[in-house]
């Protein structure tokens, strides 16, 4: 990548301790159990661009989002923001001010007991960006107008707004500390389709105006196609295919990506025959050996069951795509 990356993630891994309480474990003779949510994830987001992560529920997308803003401490690997390492749980106000997050559920992401103006002003107050009350009020009013609400809405409570309006408030809050980088964790999945488009266009518009960098998490491929420059497809905590969004949508190579894109309904070919995706996502507590996708993969062979595939860089018309798949590496997918 030519441009300097704003966010760079290397070899990121995160595990959750899902063991039973100590006493029960001791009585049943169990060992500690860990859920491997994220494994060996590396990517970089150039300034001003959008990188999207897609995948099924439970594949670790949201965990990466939370790791990126420092909500969790990574088990392995490193996260660098503009060249500086992020360590979770430590006070780095200067770094934290430059990033923020937009959440999935607009009904849970705004404190129901706070007035909208206080919600939006919280980052300003926490980072001490402004002291004067009138100044803060003016800034909050400006932010509300920027996201398509009116300054008078600041005196209301969140429950007086619709889902789409709440998501606008959430965006205004995320923007209030003038960040450069926003993590968007499925920001439209709780909204109606018509409202989704409004919010996505607002986000694109703000990106163009303010030069924002997005890490965009979604399971909706249509939304991702609309938003992304770069795209990473995740399966069970790993990135299986990553590259320019156009390249992947034009010519998906990884069998999982192909199955995902295959599942998109098409207006031009209604009722076409599809290859159904068999099976369920395996448990991340006991992931299958080798390539984690092998139990569902139509191309799996003995090597896939034994050996973890490493990312392989392929050049395409739209740029370099990294694919972690033995079948692609061996050319079996074209057979």
């Amino acid at each position, binding site marked *: 990548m030519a441009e300097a990356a704003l966010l760079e993630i290397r070899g990121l891994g995160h595990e959750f301790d899902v063991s039973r309480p100590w006493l029960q474990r001791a009585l049943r003779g169990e060992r500690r159990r860990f859920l491997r949510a994220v494994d060996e994830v590396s990517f970089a987001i150039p300034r001003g661009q959008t990188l999207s992560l897609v995948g099924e529920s439970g594949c670790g997308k949201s965990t990466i989002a*939370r790791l990126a*803003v*420092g*909500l969790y401490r990574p088990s392995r690997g490193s996260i660098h923001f503009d060249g500086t390492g992020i360590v979770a749980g430590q*006070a*780095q*106000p200067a770094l*934290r*001010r430059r*990033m*923020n*997050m937009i*959440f*999935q*559920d607009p009904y*849970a*992401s*705004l*404190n*129901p*007991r*706070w007035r909208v103006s206080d919600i939006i002003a*919280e*980052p300003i107050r*926490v*980072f001490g960006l402004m002291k004067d009350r009138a100044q803060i009020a003016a800034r909050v009013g400006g932010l509300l107008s920027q996201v398509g609400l009116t300054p008078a809405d600041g005196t209301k*409570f969140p*429950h007086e707004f619709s889902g789409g309006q709440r998501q606008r408030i*959430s965006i205004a*809050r995320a923007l209030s*500390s003038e960040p450069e980088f926003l993590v968007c964790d499925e920001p439209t999945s709780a909204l109606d389709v018509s409202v989704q488009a409004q919010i996505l266009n607002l986000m694109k518009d703000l990106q163009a105006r303010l030069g924002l960098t997005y890490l965009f998490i979604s399971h909706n491929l249509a939304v991702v196609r609309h938003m992304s420059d770069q795209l990473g497809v995740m399966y069970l905590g790993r990135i299986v295919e990553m590259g320019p969004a156009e390249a992947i949508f034009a010519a998906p190579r990884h069998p999982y990506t192909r199955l995902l894109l295959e599942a998109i309904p098409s207006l031009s070919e209604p009722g076409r025959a599809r290859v159904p995706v068999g099976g369920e996502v395996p448990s991340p507590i006991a992931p299958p050996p080798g390539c984690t996708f092998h139990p569902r993969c139509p191309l799996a062979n003995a090597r896939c069951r034994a050996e973890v595939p490493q990312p392989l860089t392929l050049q395409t018309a739209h740029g370099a795509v990294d694919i972690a798949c033995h079948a692609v590496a061996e050319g079996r997918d074209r057979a």
Partner: protein
Amino acid sequence: MSVTATPARPGLGARLRAAYDSDLCYHFRHSPVAVLAGAIVALMLFGAIFAPWVAPHDPFDLASLNLMDSFHPPVPLAGSVWTFPLGTDDQGRDVFSAILFGMRISLEVGVAAVLFAMVVGVLIGLLAGYAGGVVDAALMRIADVQLTFPAILVSLLVDGVVGAVLPTDLHRSLQIGILIFAIGISNWPQFARTVRGSTLVERNKEYVMAARVIGVARWRVMLSHILPNVLGPVLIIATLNLGFAIISEATLSFLGVGLPPTEPSLGTLINTGNNFLFSGDWWMTVFPGATLVLMVLAINLLGDWLRDALNPRLR
């Protein structure tokens, strides 16, 4: 709440009118039960707070007592005197005045005990719920142990231990404080458990994460984000506990370990009056008893109403 409904004074007119038009006040005005309970509580609060000025006699002033006035029945009955509307006790004290002063002490002990239990319980519950893990387990086991002792037993225990440790004079002068501590300490686990439960739900909500993302300090997340969202149930428990605390105090005083007859609470009055119940002088115990029942009932009804009114999602 009822205070805001009083007619506006000239200077504060606009603000009081705004308060009168507020949702809460509207809700209050349109709930007959709340208005009735509020009126009773307001009247009792008034009587209790201004007892020295409202009461026709001072039951603490021994010089004003006259044994000739003892055992007057309440007003419509034969032998009653208008200066003692609810009759007099064996010392010639006015029952009505004694009730006013008794309510004062009962409310004082009740409110202070509930506040004590609430502050301790809410802080422990928040900490346990938000910190989780070992802290949570340790605090909740302490609460479990506390819950296994009945409130009255704890109160008797505290009173007994303090009484044995401190010299009698000091014990006497600290009696109210000891009662407050004894009643409060047996009630905090209720607050702690409720708050912990709500905190466990709230702490994983995205608004808490939004605050953590920007690096808000843990204690501020707890106090300014989570606390307002877990206070709803606390308010209900506090009002129900206020009734309970008042009754606990009355029980202790009735059993003779609470406040002495020289400083009578409602419970003490019921106790002293009880000795004369079988000689036909029922008013000494029935009026304080009825006052106690009415007070606790009104407080509980008001608490129920407040729960509904303060929940923005129910409006």
